[in-house]
């Protein structure tokens, strides 16, 4: 029976200092991670706390007087939340799919050297990254000319074409083996067929990355609803959270005027539970898909 040979490893200062610095580095990173996660921990704990205890003792790292009351209340009358959820899901799904289609078609055309007006079209896109009319003219256009106020389209259309993503897709398409396209063309395939049957299937990594960023943009958007949505039925998730926060403030600051009669005051634990419910799915999904984001971050900054 072979025995493991005992090797004598002389003390090495190099190895020792390396181990010490490894411990040190990990300790610092653990601390940093804790600080980064702190707000999340505090909010989750608050959502699981008892309302009175929270009001009295304040926010803390651990739930105080553990209670699921906030979530029970939330799911007892979930109409508004469900509505907001469905608006957000609809906008996110439609916007992402449509945006991917529109942007990749544009990017493909811009990536083809045969396309005669490729240069002016690219310049038009680049110029929008340098100069914009600004908020006021855009606001007037959308509300007065296009009359899109309180229309669900206003939550989708403005983000469909994001020049930066178009350029990412374009450089990806330009990097595909051009022989494939040439061969298909010789075989008589139309540009549309080449695009849909050869280019798109080969481009799933780029489409996935851009798609994930689009999902994030649409899911987390509060800007378009802040500007253009007044109808509570069209509130997306983010804006619902904001309006509840604002209304709660309004009510508490007017609580002695009798306005409160018959109005249910959103409580702190409830608000924190809403944050968790609003954030939960996207945060989990995105942590799972992190590597695609990392890839996207790299395309954006290194190869864009």
């Amino acid at each position: 029976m072979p025995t493991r040979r005992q090797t004598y490893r002389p003390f090495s200062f190099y190895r020792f200092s390396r181990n010490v610095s490894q411990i040190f580095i990990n300790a610092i990173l653990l601390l940093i991670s804790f600080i980064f996660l702190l707000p999340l921990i505090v909010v989750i704990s608050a959502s699981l706390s008892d309302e009175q205890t929270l009001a009295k003792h304040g926010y803390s790292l651990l739930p105080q007087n553990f209670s699921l009351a906030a979530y029970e209340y939330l799911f007892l009358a979930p109409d508004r939340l469900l509505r907001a959820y469905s608006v957000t899901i609809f906008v996110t799904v439609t916007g992402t799919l449509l945006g991917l289609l529109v942007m990749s078609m544009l990017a493909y055309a811009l990536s083809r050297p045969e396309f005669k007006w490729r240069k002016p079209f690219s310049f038009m896109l680049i110029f929008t990254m340098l100069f914009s009319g600004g908020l006021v003219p855009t606001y007037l256009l959308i509300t007065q000319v296009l009359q899109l106020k309180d229309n669900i389209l206003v939550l989708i259309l403005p983000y469909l074409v994001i020049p930066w993503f178009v350029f990412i897709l374009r450089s990806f398409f330009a990097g595909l083996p051009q022989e494939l396209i040439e061969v298909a063309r010789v075989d008589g395939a139309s540009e549309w067929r080449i695009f849909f049957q050869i280019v798109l299937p080969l481009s799933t990594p780029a489409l996935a990355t851009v798609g994930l960023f689009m999902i994030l943009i649409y899911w987390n958007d509060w800007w378009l609803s802040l500007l253009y949505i007044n109808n509570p039925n069209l509130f997306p998730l983010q804006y619902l959270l904001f309006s509840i926060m604002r209304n709660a403030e309004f009510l508490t600051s007017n609580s002695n005027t009798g306005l409160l009669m018959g109005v249910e005051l959103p409580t702190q634990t409830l608000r924190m539970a809403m944050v968790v419910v609003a954030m939960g799915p996207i945060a989990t999904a995105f942590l799972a898909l992190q590597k695609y984001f990392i890839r996207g971050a790299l395309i954006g900054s290194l190869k864009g």
Partner: protein
Amino acid sequence: MIHLTDTPSQEKKRWPFTKAISLSAALARFLRDLQKNGAFLLMSLPGFLLVIVFSYLPMPGIIIAFKNFKANLGLWNSPWVGFKNFEFLFATDIAWRITYNTIFLNSIFIFTSILGSLGLALLLNEVRIKWLARFYQSAVFFPYFVSWVIVGLFGFAILNYDNGLMNVTLERLGYERVDWYKTPSYWPAILTITNLWKGAGYWSIVYLAAMMGISPDYYEAAELDGASRWQQITRITLPLITPLIIINFLLSVGRIFFADFGMFYYVTRDSSLLYPTTDVIDTYVFRALRRLGDFGMAGAAGLYQSLVGFLTILFANWVVKRVDPEKSIF
């Protein structure tokens, strides 16, 4: 690095000065081009139209800055007032305040964000245990996925006067409570921390990837020569990613005139007492437009931002082009 051309253009255009082209020949050529490029034109059409509508149609609207806008008259029929709106804007100290806050805070953000994310990337690069490295990355990356509305609520949990984590902790340690949302002097620091928290994970991963792209040969050679880990960092890692740092720095400088509206609006809870240190151009334009309904002033401030912003972006891009032509926007 966005090239206007991906491949060298094959056809060199020689303008036929010698022979006059008749109108019909030109038209025929145009039609032939249309036919030849028809599929590409159709493909780019939807995206192109959206860009025209949402980016180009608003542009003529900048004339609102020179008008006394009346909703019932519409943009075109409202009376011209010349530079009146700008005079009003620059007569008060508002213009100075929002310009100063925007540039001052953005400068702090740029430096802290680069230093913070670079430091974080260097630390992450040293971790040898895979699963721990993944945990750290997720923890610092997570704020990137959180919307500003939710960050605002996070802030509320920590900073609110009555029972926020900060005040509870301060009190427990025997200090006085602070009314954070009413004390402007704390906010440059609070916003800097928020900005760092939100973006450091993303940028550190960008730098980390660049570090991982460095060939291990350099490090092996250095180790043979007896270089310590620290020396390897300062002599190999940092010099090799300096170009990326410079480019990121310049691109952020190009956007120095544009503030992250979401942070300034939601994290400060739009508290008017904080305006002296937190009011930036973007929040001012928004407020003038939506709260005060002063379209002329909002338009003037917006145009001022667009124009100066345009110049800073051009300038930054010009410098980027000198550093690394591949990375310039155009």
